[in-house]
């Protein structure tokens, strides 16, 4: 099955994706097999339900945001139909290791930060507001911490990073705080060949 399905991927597509994302050919083919496996409708696009069917992902407290993140690169029309393989790869490319040799427009520190920022920024207004943060915190810690305490944490987190005291963290402020956090090392996943 492996050979058969990867042959559906045109050589030209592989080249394009390679250029765009920096993955190797083997990695692309491997991920394509996974993509086909997830694609229950067989239409070359992954819907939210397709992602939702991954059992391990279902227990992830942030699963909604993670699934959302695969649509950051999609236009609005696409969103209805799901993300195609190219967009799928574009999202994953953010998690490639960033080194001098392996650098490409999608896995620079700036891009990684933007990606993380958009995870926080639920309402897509370009700011991490207290409401955004509170939602994320609620997802992560569950019900074990009281609402007031969470609110306190959210408040303090915003205050720590908020330089212009508008009660929200914009991207510049976010970048500044994350400067010491070694994001380019932390946000990497190994992609098997």
């Amino acid at each position: 099955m492996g050979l058969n399905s990867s042959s559906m991927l045109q050589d030209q597509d592989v080249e394009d994706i390679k250029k765009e994302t920096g993955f190797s050919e083997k990695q692309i083919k491997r991920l394509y097999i996974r993509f086909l496996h997830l694609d229950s409708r067989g239409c070359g696009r992954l819907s939210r339900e397709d992602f939702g069917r991954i059992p391990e992902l279902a227990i992830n407290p942030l699963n909604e945001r993670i699934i959302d993140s695969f649509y950051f690169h999609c236009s609005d029309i696409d969103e209805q139909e799901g993300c195609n393989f190219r967009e799928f790869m574009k999202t994953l490319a953010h998690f490639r290791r960033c080194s001098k040799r392996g650098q490409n427009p999608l896995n620079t520190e700036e891009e990684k930060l933007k990606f993380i920022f958009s995870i926080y920024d639920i309402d897509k207004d370009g700011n991490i507001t207290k409401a955004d943060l509170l939602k994320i915190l609620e997802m992560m810690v569950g019900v074990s911490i009281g609402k007031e305490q969470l609110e306190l944490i959210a408040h303090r987190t915003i205050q720590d990073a908020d330089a212009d005291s508008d009660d929200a963290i914009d991207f510049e402020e976010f970048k500044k705080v994350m400067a010491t956090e070694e994001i380019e090392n932390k946000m990497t996943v190994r992609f098997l060949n």
Partner: protein
Amino acid sequence: MTKRLSKVVPESCMVILLGILLGSILNAADFQNVATISNFNSRIFFLFLLPPIVLDAGYFLHTRAFFDNIGTILLYAVVGTIFNTFTVGLTLYITTDLGINLLQMLLFSCLIAAVDPVAVLAVFEEVHVNEVLYILVFGESLLNDAVTVVLYRLFEALVTQGGTPKVEEVFIGVAAFFVVSLGGMLIGIFWAYLTAFLSKFIDHVKVLEPIFVVCMCYMSYLSAELFHFSGIISIVTCAIVMKPYVEANISQKSRIPLKYFMKMASSLSETIIFMMLGVILFDRQLEFDAWFTLLTIIFILVYRCLGVVLLTWLANSLRLNKLGKVDQFIMAYGGLRGAVSFSLATVLEEKYVPKKNIMETTTIAVVFFTVFVQGITIKPLVNLLKVKRAVKRKEVMLGEVNDKLLDHLLGGVQDVIQHRGRYYWKNLHQYVDMKYLRPWFM
């Protein structure tokens, strides 16, 4: 003057010097009770002095860094220690002719090959290299205990039986390694969960809380030793597993005494150990063989370097953050030997190992060499080579929140690409913890 001295010389060296001073005074005064000092034997060391140090190290271990690098640490601890034992033993056997047979030599090399957690802690605490480097050297020194224990017992048994090892005995040795380390781990986990569970019910006697936790950890050490499992691994596992639950269960007021009790007990033990290393110089029949000592020191250095380079090459092919040349050098250079080696040397039986005194003296020499020469020079070297230092992270909430978010995010990505990596396990553990363990233990 004192300030400058303490900047150059690590504390452990100073304490050894103090011990030497004390020993010479006792010696000069012809102090009859030197015999009581020589009672500093391996029993006292393993039962009373070692556990506080490892407990403290385990309890305050940076678990995140530790588990992020667990693969590499295990590689160094297991493969590295075996590699060092056999290479040092074999070359020493070939190059020296003191009438030590091969098995006795391997017994010696196995106690000298293992990196010592006490010495590493004592020196590295003051150097402040970056976290990854620190956890690699220190984690190795903690986990190689199982290997050392197994190899030591194996060779000891072979030496006392006086036969050549049979094939099945080698297999039993390999199996014993897993039994010793996993057994220690299981006992540690058992005591940890027991402590976590019981600590739910002791909040009406707050005075007891710190001592209760410490005692339970000590019990895990003792019960592991009882079965001849690795006590070090047991107590470290116990401390790591219990920490999140215990911290949540005991009162805020008990947390501070607990911390200081552990810190104080460990530094007390450390001081006694290094002091005794100094005193012991005047107390033993030293049988110095310069050639043998010199070769031992050279070989352990050479093979340590060789082992680190080989294993790092292996590890780097799997690691996302590659280890550079400088890191490798510090790792090889940070392999200090210490009191564990010495204590193991003292329990050698003269009946079976006729050259025991030479071995003991050589061990003392090696320990002194590593603690003094490597210990004193490591800081200037770290400066000279511009090793990445531990950056004092600005304590921002967003950083902590973000670490958590990244764990889940990367775990999610690994789920999507179906790769059961580190983050996948982290997420799974957290899920199980939240859903099943916390309700029981908190």
